[in-house]
């Protein structure tokens, strides 16, 4: 399985863009959270964009990742966005109530 690398985390105009891996589960979640938090501390980040273009599988671990990052940036007025969200991910967002805190962008 393709692993996520530092290159998948980019800061553009105070926006952290995370290219999510093919499979988002508990195994891959730790690394994503660690690397994302490193970027949040090091760089001036206001908003976070989760890009699901590669993602073929996600379980509730993905919800934890997004909720956790939202908690960290929302106190500074930051927002979380998601792009390239397929039907299954959309369902998971709805089911968990995450669609209330994450804005899904067309692309």
């Amino acid at each position: 399985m393709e692993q996520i690398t530092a290159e998948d985390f980019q800061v553009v105009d105070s926006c952290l863009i995370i290219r999510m891996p093919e499979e988002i589960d508990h195994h891959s979640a730790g690394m994503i959270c660690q690397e994302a938090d490193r970027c949040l501390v090091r760089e001036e980040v206001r908003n976070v964009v989760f890009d699901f273009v590669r993602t073929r599988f996600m379980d509730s671990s993905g919800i934890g990742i997004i909720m956790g990052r939202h908690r960290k940036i929302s106190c500074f007025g930051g927002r979380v966005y998601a792009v390239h969200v397929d039907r299954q991910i959309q369902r998971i967002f709805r089911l968990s109530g995450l669609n209330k805190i994450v804005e899904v962008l067309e692309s």
Partner: protein
Amino acid sequence: MKNEMELIFDAVSDNESFARVAVAAFLTHLNPTLEEMADIKTAVSEAVTNSIIHGYGNLEGLEPGGEGCPVNPGKVRVCCSLEDGMLHILVEDKGKGIEDVERAMEPLFTTRPELERSGMGFAFMEAFTDELQVESAPGQGTVVRMSKKIGAEDQDAGSGI
């Protein structure tokens, strides 16, 4: 037609994808829809992850024999049976068990908030299958049973074969 399979594997997070992919492969000949397949994989992933982190307390990012991995991580057992288009999945661990099953099944409830997980594991298992049963007691491990009708969506159009 009846078909059964059983998997026993080390309770390490690297095996989460193995477990869900194996279950998905087991039911491919029933021609499940993409959605049914995704539902099953998510439900299995939730149950297996619970066994690994809550049952045995094994954190993420561990690979068998890798750094930080316990010598005896414990085992997770996954059994599947298919009968008349119905998939039954059992996920069992011999870990520490759950004190209050009803409470554990509440959405957003978690005993380990420091892990930054969503507390949605059981809610997802419930939402993505037709039936969910959890048996557990402290020190006795946990058994999760899930059932889902495969091919239910085009049941009326099917020829019954």
